């Protein structure tokens, strides 16, 4: 928003330069979202959507117990997944940035982190199912070794399975921006801190953590928005027994209740935007850029 202020109104070149992006955003972002907002006020019956202006879709959405339950559930997943991906992502990035000495090895290990991403994320997710199942690899091993007498039921089709799959899918989205921020930290700052008598923990707490905040912020935005909008991971890993906002929407679409789904999408968009805004209040991402 601010950079625009620099352009003088007569400067046609700037408008031409900004036009392609503006057109793309208008066509592929503004128009679809405007359509969704318009449709969210329409009425519908069994098979048709009827142009109208009614508040019923929102009224039902905002007063229903299900909405609250699904949002609580979705936010719970988002919080758990964020906490885990952050701890793992920070640790991995810290190791890569400060413990691996040569750049070659840094690159090799970094590429290693991305290997799981060479397969589709649905396959990465589904492959957990036979592994965690009642008669799956993990349970048979545990029973065989005598660690447990009965197969552990909570491993699959549970919140545990959902969070596990999310962490597996999205940790890299944390590692990359945090690693990037860490690589930009001036090493002399750390030296100075150590010279001033800081312990290893204090260096992390007071020097590295504040300086990697932009990376953490970007990673968090990725992870939180992905988890908030997800429907397939929750459906597959919970065995259809848990709900998320995305599942509610996909159910409505399947039943041709497009206006209800649109209203749901608008509310989710607002909630996620508020969450992102809150994160941006804490972290100035632009420092990174």
């Amino acid at each position: 928003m601010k950079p625009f202020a620099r352009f003088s109104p007569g400067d046609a070149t700037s408008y031409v330069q900004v036009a392609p992006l503006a057109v793309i955003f208008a066509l592929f972002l503004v128009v679809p979202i405007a359509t969704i907002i318009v449709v969210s006020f329409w009425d519908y019956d069994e098979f048709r959507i009827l142009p109208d202006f009614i508040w019923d879709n929102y009224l039902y959405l905002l007063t229903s117990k299900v909405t609250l339950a699904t949002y609580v559930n979705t936010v719970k997943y988002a919080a758990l997944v964020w906490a885990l991906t952050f701890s793992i992502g920070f640790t991995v990035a810290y190791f890569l940035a400060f413990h691996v000495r040569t750049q070659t090895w840094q690159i090799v290990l970094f590429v290693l982190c991305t290997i799981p991403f060479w397969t589709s994320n649905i396959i990465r997710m589904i492959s957990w199912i036979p592994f965690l199942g009642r008669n799956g690899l993990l349970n048979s091993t545990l029973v065989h070794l005598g660690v447990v007498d009965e197969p552990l039921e909570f491993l699959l089709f549970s919140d545990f399975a959902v969070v596990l799959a999310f962490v597996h899918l999205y940790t890299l989205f944390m590692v990359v921006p945090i690693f990037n921020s860490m690589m930009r930290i001036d090493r002399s700052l750390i030296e100075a801190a150590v010279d001033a008598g800081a312990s290893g923990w204090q260096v992390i707490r007071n020097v590295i953590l504040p300086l990697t905040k932009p990376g953490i912020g970007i990673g968090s935005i990725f992870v939180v928005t992905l988890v908030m909008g997800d429907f397939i991971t929750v459906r597959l890993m919970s065995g259809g027994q848990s709900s998320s906002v995305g599942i509610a929407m996909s159910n409505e679409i399947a039943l041709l209740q497009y206006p209800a789904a649109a209203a749901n999408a608008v509310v989710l968009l607002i909630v996620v935007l508020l969450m992102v805004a809150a994160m941006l209040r804490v972290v100035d991402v632009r420092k990174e850029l």
Partner: protein
Amino acid sequence: MKRKTGATSRRSFLKNSAAIAAGAALGSGAIPGFPAIWAQNIKNVTLRQFGTGVSNLNAIAEKCKEDLGITLQMTALDSDSVAQRAVTQPNSFDIADIEYWVCKKVFPAGNMQPMDTKKIKYYDKIVPIFTSGKLTPQSTIAQGTAPHTVGFAKGKNSVEFAAEETGWMTLIPTIYNADTLGIRPDLIEKPVKNWRDLLDPSFKGKASILNISSIGIMDAAMVCESMGEIKYADKGNMTTAEIDKTMAIMTVAKKAGQFRAFWKSFDESVNLMAAGEVVIQSMWSPAVAAVRAKGIPCVYQPLEEGYRAWGGGIGLAKHLSGLELDAAYEYINWYLSGWVGAYLNRQGYYSACIETAKQHMSADEWAFWMEGKPAKTDILSPEGKVMEKAGTVRDGGSFYDRMGAVACWNAVMDENKYLVRKWNEFIAA
């Protein structure tokens, strides 16, 4: 690259067939008194048929081309999209292959035309479930959307359903079957006899139900009625109070951990059963066959309270006339003449004219599929794979044992919107 070529050729194919259709319409409708030389022209007709995957079989289209020369363009969609398309895009199809409960919603919209039963050669041979509603004169009519209640229109141009046979049929039945619970006999010790066994505490964490509200609620209702908790006036058209009570019982069971998972697609139900995650669940007949094909024992268990049945049929689009309409009748007569019926019976479904199908099945096949007798030789699928070993008996027995024990038909309720919301609450609970 390959895919692109395919797309182009299909598009040009569509274009061509559209041109043929337009030409046919011109040749027949626009010029009155044009002599009826259609019999040979029928070979050039393309009929666009859409419906759910179960009966939209390529083998049928191929055989139809071979026998009649008519080209069938099949489009497979899910039931919800089928219903939507039939109502909102009346010119996008010639033949609609829909379920009877969908017909109840779709036919009154006026995009389809009833069929003159005088032009249907095998009308008298259609199983009476679809005409009088009674399989045998002694049968009682099941709850839900029984096919004969939406099988006839009041007249040629009527969009209202008639209570009795009028000579104007809305749908010609294609496939129907009786559904029940599937079980893993090797992992279950006690006998399963009733729908209420789905919520039996000994199957805690090992049960599943399908997560499609309109069908799931029926299975849930069969369970609640079997428990003696609820007595429904009509399971196929519940009151809001009945929906509330049913969902309350299911929610208690869900919170107590009775269910391992809910399934939405065919393959999910197969995997849950085959992996032993679930030992008792709602299931569809081909899914049971798929589990058995992996060498894992699975039984489509007949239950005392009876089956939940479903059925589909083909209907004609309103815009069909002249040559195309004749071709459509020709196709329907061919459909009922036996080859298709035998094909469907061999998949474990039932066909509309079982008599004509019999002529296309071997004596052993007929005895196994339709009479519930032990197979004398290995039973093969239509593709020639061994489905059942010699000596096996079909679960549930004969056609009359199974279709005679239908407790309710798949249905669409007046309170459908309410049901969907309650169902979502159940899943979120």
